[in-house]
């Protein structure tokens, strides 16, 4: 009964989210473009699918994964787990003690990104537009690796308390250098993959991890140090997607030159 009630509520709030978008699109379609929408019945059915699908997805996450993920984030960052049960009073922090936290950050970042609906959407589109040159799975895995690196580096930053902007600006410099050497047609897609990684699945889990860490690591405050993981998760996929493009570009070049060598 409770679940039903909750599902209704989430469906209503999803409709609220979708409403302004639908209003803007149909408003412009009728008032400015003044042409009927092609296949309107199918489009409306599709919007219903999107709303119900998203609502079920969110309810499922809230019922199952988020509570468990949050509890796990709390337990993994708990000093009692990290330093053993006999911790009392003062202790010094070593960043090496948090290895399980970094590993959890990386694996949870990777796996939630694989299930991220907006990334699936962009990957489908990119595959279609590139006539199959960009693989749906290739792109998703490249982005997921980026998020994994980003989030575990982000947790390392919270543990050590180093300033956020050093990392981000270094990342930017990296992106700029890579942009010079990456195949031109992948650049826009790579930049986009930064923004799509962080929506429904990743943000709540990652936020819980950041808050759990900054609450338990001595000298950190959740208010000042809890932020920044999302920024990491949106920067590193740009680097890995360009890396993936460079790698596959380089491999085609090599196999081509090998073929030529054989032929000559």
């Amino acid at each position, binding site marked *: 009964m409770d679940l039903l009630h909750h599902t209704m509520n989430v469906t209503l709030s999803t409709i609220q989210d979708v409403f302004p978008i639908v209003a803007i699109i149909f408003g412009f379609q009728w008032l400015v473009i003044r042409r009927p929408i092609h296949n309107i019945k199918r489009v409306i059915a599709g919007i219903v699918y*999107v709303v119900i699908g998203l609502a079920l997805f969110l*309810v499922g996450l809230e019922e199952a994964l988020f509570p468990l993920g949050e509890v796990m984030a709390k337990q993994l960052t708990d000093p009692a787990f990290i330093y053993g049960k006999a911790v009392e009073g003062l202790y010094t922090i070593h960043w090496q003690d948090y290895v399980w936290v970094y590993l959890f950050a990386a694996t949870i970042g990777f796996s939630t990104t694989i299930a991220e609906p*907006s990334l699936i959407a962009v990957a489908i589109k990119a595959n279609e537009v590139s006539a199959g040159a960009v693989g749906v799975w290739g792109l998703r895995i490249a982005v997921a690796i980026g998020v994994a690196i980003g989030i575990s580096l982000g947790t390392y930053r919270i543990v050590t308390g180093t300033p*956020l902007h050093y990392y981000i600006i270094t990342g930017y410099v990296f992106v700029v250098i890579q*942009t010079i050497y990456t195949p031109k047609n992948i650049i826009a897609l790579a930049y986009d993959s930064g923004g799509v990684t962080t929506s429904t699945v990743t*943000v709540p889990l990652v936020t819980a991890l950041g808050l759990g860490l900054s609450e338990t690591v001595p000298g950190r405050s959740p208010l000042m140090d809890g932020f920044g993981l999302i920024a990491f998760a949106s920067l590193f996929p740009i680097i890995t997607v360009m890396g993936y493009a460079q790698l596959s570009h380089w491999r085609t070049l090599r196999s081509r030159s090998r073929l030529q060598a054989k032929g000559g």
Partner: protein
Amino acid sequence: MFGTSLRDLMPIILVIAFFQFLVLKQPIPNLGNLLVGTVFVVVGLSLFIRGLNMALFPLGETLAYDFARKGSVFWLLVFAFALGFGTTIAEPALIAVADKAAEVAAVGGMIVDEVTARQEYATGLRITVALSVGIAVVIGVLRILRGWPIQVVIITGYIAVMVMTIFAPKEIIGIAYDSGGVTTSTITVPLVTALGVGLASSIKGRNPMTDGFGLIALASLTPMIFVMAYGMFF
């Protein structure tokens, strides 16, 4: 149909099982809830992908074609702004971040620590971010029309972020950097992507691969600049 979604979800299940059983060495609490929730997630994701191909992609594309045929740059830009602003202002993730930012500002002494002051600050921040996303989509659409290279636009944005970081109050930087990631929701991303790709393929001389993407990148960059500016002036 559900098989694909189950496969998409498998890594999460494996990670949770690994840490729960082998690292934390604890049983799964509320196994029933977990199973029901997983079924919901799988069914929901499958329906969403279905609706994506039936509604969001075709809508974004036909709009792009229709605007290109109509040939009115003005209305296209008005639409771009409305889409960016309208989808961001109500975004739940943004509302959460804005409230958090108001808390930081109050603790940091940038505003008076009162409920009304906090609410005003949070609302102002939300409008700022929504404006910045609206402007981002306008710039992004202009870029597709004119064929400006994406890297020039984005790297200019990066430089702006770096410069702003020097001048912005320290407390706001973390929130500003995070706000870039939270603005693009699950419904906006497919729609905006289809719009960009549709525009680039219906305009002569544009390549959907090099010119069609990039709108999301801009929409996640401008909020960082605008939020830092907001932190400096309020």
